[in-house]
């Protein structure tokens, strides 16, 4: 009997594929081939620079300088990576970036939830006033200089707080969270818990937050990537070298060409040439991207979900 069903299924599938083959007209096949080709070309264009940078970072300085690296690494050498880990500047930057990202993201999530949850409660008087108050900040802002003067007057210049507090939440994320609280958590839960004598804070903590793990994950990732990649706030608010985040250190090394002497100190004199500095730059790029790259495959779907929830508006 089972074999019978199976074979019937096969027949059905075979005839279905035959049918599509017959029905798919010539023009459609040409179009589809064109689409596959186009997507292939786009993907290769995106992929090539990434592979090229990784290959250059593990190639020998001579090969890079002579332009012998096209796609795959030539004369594999990991010396650049070794010298990166000898740089105190970079390691301090790495440590600082981790601190900014962890604490900053925690502050972001706390403020976003604190703002979004009351906004999602339909029976709270003044909800629309709060919403308007928040939306105004999207369209009007004091701009760079008044914000800088404020941070200065609060004595937060050259402290870690300058990177944590001025952007405590993003309006966009609050709207996403509010939409999620409103649409994905059944109101029956709130009614039932209210009958049992559960007040708002307890309801948020014990029912809403555990049910909002997917959206909290998306938010954490968005905020964390933002903190990890930011350099502008450090550029305007920080002066002390021991507070600089990784991106700021990278800017000095990669764009302003100020390599840390410590990185070049232990390499042989013959290698202290342009070639080694070039390889070093490629390796720096790879090292800076590692945390995001490790995370990326796991979170790619979540990011997509985050954008989709955000696009619902409402």
């Amino acid at each position, binding site marked *: 009997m089972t074999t019978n069903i199976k074979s019937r299924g096969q027949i059905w599938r075979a005839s279905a594929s035959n049918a599509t083959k017959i029905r798919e007209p010539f023009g459609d096949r040409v179009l589809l081939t064109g689409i596959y080709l186009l997507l292939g070309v786009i993907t290769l*264009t995106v992929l090539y620079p990434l592979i090229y940078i990784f290959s250059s970072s593990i190639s020998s300085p001579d090969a890079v300088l002579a332009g012998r690296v096209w796609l795959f690494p030539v004369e594999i050498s990991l010396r650049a990576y070794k010298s990166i880990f000898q740089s105190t500047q970079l390691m301090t930057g790495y440590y600082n970036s981790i601190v900014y990202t962890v604490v900053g993201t925690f502050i972001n999530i706390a403020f976003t939830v604190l703002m979004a949850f009351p906004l999602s409660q339909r029976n709270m008087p003044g909800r629309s006033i709060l919403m308007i108050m928040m939306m105004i900040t999207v369209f009007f802002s004091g701009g760079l200089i008044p914000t800088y003067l*404020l941070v200065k007057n609060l004595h937060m210049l050259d402290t870690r707080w300058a990177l944590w507090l001025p952007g405590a939440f993003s309006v966009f994320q609050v709207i996403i969270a509010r939409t999620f609280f409103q649409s994905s958590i059944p109101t029956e839960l709130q009614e039932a818990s209210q009958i049992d004598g559960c007040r708002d804070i307890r309801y948020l903590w014990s029912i809403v937050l555990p049910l909002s793990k997917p959206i909290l994950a998306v938010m954490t990732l968005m905020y964390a990537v933002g903190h990890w990649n930011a350099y502008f706030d450090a550029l305007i608010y920080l002066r002390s070298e021991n507070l600089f985040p990784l991106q700021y250190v990278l800017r000095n090394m*990669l764009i302003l060409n100020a390599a840390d002497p410590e990185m070049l100190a232990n390499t042989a004199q013959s290698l202290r040439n342009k070639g080694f500095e070039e390889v070093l730059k490629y390796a*720096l790029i790879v090292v800076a991207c590692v945390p995001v790259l490790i995370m990326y495959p796991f979170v790619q779907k979540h990011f997509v979900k985050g954008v*989709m929830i955000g696009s619902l508006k409402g």
Partner: protein
Amino acid sequence: MAQTWIKMRRSWELYLLVLLPVLYLIIFKYIPMFGVIIAFKDFNVVKGILGSPWVGFKHFENLFQSPNFSVLIKNTLLISAYSLLAGFPIPILLALALNEIRTGFFKRSVQMITYAPHFISTVVMVSIIILMLSPHVGVVERIFTFFGLPTTNFMGEPGLFKSIYVWSGVWQEMGYASIIYIAALAGVDPSLYEAARMDGASRLKKILHIDLPSLIPITITMLILSLGNLMAVGFEKIFLMQNPLNLSTSEVISTYVYKVGLLGANFSFSSAVGLFNSVINLVLLIAVNAIARRVSENSLW
């Protein structure tokens, strides 16, 4: 009235929760908004924002008369318009193309790879651009030489700055920007495709008559937002890509505000420039939204 009062008392815990974010909004958003008045004053660090003397529109007049003004406006507008023309349609095309192929290894790889550059930081992105375009050792120059094309110091050529900025932006953002259109296409009613198939519509016809029309609402929303930001060219990437050789085409309003204001400590003049920029943005946003509401039913508000 009494009922509202009872409701408010019942919601006291919600007000307690929202207290911290509201304080944040007041301190970090509304106080700087008020601080914009220094654009109409001669700001003096000792006297503070309130104590500094009023000077009316002096800084705005200086701005409009300065020889930099027309260059700044021209660069800002050209870079924005170029980014919009190149960067806006490509994600839509990518989404339409991805929508045509079956879910499988190929589709997932294309998506995963094209989304990835979005997560590269601005500093690293600009470093990649500089390294790949660097004279003699950069891979782009070698590829150009290989095909017998003329090469130059790409980053030092003022005429090339805008193209480098825009196309590297397309490279970085096209995949991620397409997500929102892919989401919209996923929501199309399948019965429309079935009906089209029954009527013998070709793939191209289905794209033109089902996919494209269903993308119109989200496209208009995105277009309004981008047009409203026409004067707000991102500071971060341009600032990092600037060098003394390309400054004539790469100086935009936001980088000018930073240089004059923070590096030159010319707070009042710089605030005036920033304010001028945000007022234009707001006017653009309102105007585009009004036009969109008139010609179609889609608008932001």
